[in-house]
């Protein structure tokens, strides 16, 4: 009912800067979509175009099946949660939540019912008479959510709503927002620069850079099958390792060579790259210290610059063949800094990217 469709949308500011050159995006009804990317990638602009806070230079925006380009924000049946919460400082929590309904001339008793219902879900009942100044960060955040909820919008827009909270609260609110989404059964569009938030909350994630959608897929697919270097590097923490490797013909297949390692990859897509350098992407957890992974050509013996013990596992910062690598190994197999360690690479999980186009060759 309230899917969102961007069709060939362009956004250029008055000063001539184009932030979004050509956006095509389809968000399904009731879906939780996360827009993620580094700052300045156009994700917030995209969200604000849905809200009607930014005009659309070219192209069409549909919410449901109505073209929304010229509809003012209040008539789009959307609600938005801002990064700074944007609570009206001179109004009580109750007034903040009731304000939109009041403007829409909703009857008083209905406003009362809706505000109290939302306050109950969010645990805000005891604070309804307080001013925002007297609330903690987490409570303010919930008021902002409540203000959006009471309007029964078809679309929820959230602009980095958790970035002003401390780490612990953030995790808590993350699950609360996910729960809310299931409870309300409406479309959520969520903007963040934090890939962890994106991975844990989104049904689908839209990774953006320079106003262009890099990949739009489920979290698992983004992680397992990144379509280019940017997505591969952006999703996952610690970051995926990128290693320059030379492609060689080896028997019927090919092998990727760097340092001592010669990793067999039998994929015809590598044919045009023989003798050239490609970028080889390996996630930190695909280096294994456990002996059962040992094989031929996939072993590296690297010097440990630094180790970070995390308890169950250890992050090792390696220096191998002049390249910096990060690996994540079970604590009992880990070694300490200034030692050497022998690790096996899980060859089935390797990603190969074109050095020039940065697109994936095979994975």
């Amino acid at each position, binding site marked *: 009912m309230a899917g969102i469709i961007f069709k060939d949308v362009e956004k250029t500011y008055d000063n001539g800067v184009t932030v979004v050159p050509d956006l095509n995006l389809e968000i399904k009804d009731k879906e939780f979509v996360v827009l993620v990317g580094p700052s300045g990638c156009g994700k917030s602009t995209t969200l*604000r175009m849905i*809200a009607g*806070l930014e005009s659309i230079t070219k192209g069409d925006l549909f919410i449901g099946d109505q073209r929304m380009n010229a509809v003012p*924000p*209040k008539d789009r049946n959307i609600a*938005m949660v801002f990064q700074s919460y944007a609570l*009206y400082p*001179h109004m009580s929590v109750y007034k903040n939540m009731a304000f939109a309904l009041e*403007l829409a001339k909703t009857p008083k008793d209905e406003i009362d019912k809706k505000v109290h219902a939302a306050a109950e879900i969010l645990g805000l009942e005891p604070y309804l008479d307080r001013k925002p100044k007297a609330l903690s960060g987490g409570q303010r955040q919930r008021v902002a959510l409540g203000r959006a909820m009471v309007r029964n919008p078809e679309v929820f827009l959230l602009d980095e709503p958790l970035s002003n909270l401390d780490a612990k609260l953030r995790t808590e609110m993350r699950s609360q927002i996910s729960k809310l989404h299931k409870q309300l059964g409406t479309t959520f569009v969520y903007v963040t620069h934090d890939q962890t938030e994106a991975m844990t909350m989104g049904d689908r994630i839209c990774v953006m850079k320079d106003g262009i959608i890099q990949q739009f897929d489920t979290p698992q697919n983004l992680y397992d099958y990144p379509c280019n270097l940017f997505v591969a590097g952006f999703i996952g923490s610690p970051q995926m390792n990128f290693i320059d490797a030379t492609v060689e013909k080896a028997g019927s297949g090919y092998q990727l060579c760097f340092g001592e390692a010669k990793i067999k990859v039998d994929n015809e897509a590598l044919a045009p790259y023989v003798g050239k350098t490609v970028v080889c992407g390996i996630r930190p957890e695909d280096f294994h210290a456990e002996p059962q992974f040992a094989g031929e050509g996939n072993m590296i013996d690297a010097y440990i610059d630094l180790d970070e013990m995390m308890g169950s596992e250890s992050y090792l910062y390696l220096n191998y063949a002049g390249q910096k690598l990060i690996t994540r190994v079970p604590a009992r197999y880990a070694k300490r800094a200034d030692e050497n360690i022998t690790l096996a690479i899980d060859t089935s999980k390797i990603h190969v990217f074109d050095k020039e186009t940065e697109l994936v060759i095979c994975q």
Partner: protein
Amino acid sequence: MDKKPSHARTVIAYIVLIILTFLCLFFFYILLINCTRSHQQIQHGFSFLPGSSFVKNFNNVIHDAKLPVLSGIKNSLIVSACCAALATYFSTLTAYGLYAYNFKLKKPAFIFIMLILVMPTQVSAMGFINVITKMGMINTLYPLILPSVAAPAVFYFMYSYMQSSLPLELIEAARIDGCNEFKTFNRIVLPIMKPAIAVQAIFAFVQNWNNYFIPALVLQENSKRTLPILIAMLRSADFLKFDMGKVYMLITIAIVPIIIVYIALSRYIVAGVALGGVKE
């Protein structure tokens, strides 16, 4: 360790402060004393104790046929209150227009207002009289009130205050909640700007209450005149024949209401003065 020099410095500081306090308060003390004394008592010499002629002096001033004090107070109040209202409302509106919206002439408009920030109105007084005469507004209170719509200094204060206290997201939230632009301004922006508006309203009121140069040029009829002009008239009257009790009483009427308001609101006013200066 260095308690001694600090101690000496403290004493000097207090002495200077007490002298300055004396200078600031003493004249008003004499004023208040003398407005309660009769002409004869005042002529007789100075006294530190108040007399008993306060009511008499007050009545004399109020009922002086040549000096329309009551209408003077009324005119002064009308002009000052209207100026305070117009200056704060429209300066906030202007500041909001330049703060919250993006448009082509935004930067030139801002630079222009900053350029005329401290331009005195006296330099265009001659043309001003000409223009308002042609508009038929000479000898009315309008030319004293209407120009307050363009008050660059108030604008600048409001603009600085918005930068620190009015996040743009709030305005956007109001838009999504269903406010049109005027409603956003009146229901969201104005309440948030209340502290700044209060401070500037007081300053605008006082400034216009005390204003003498332009009103003296504009107002020619006795019944239209404001208090400062009446005081000037008193000065040009034959002074020796004048009832000194009345002179002091009129000065008291012109000054004391402002001082009472000031003492009541001093905390905010002093803070407001300080804010006006913090410019980085």
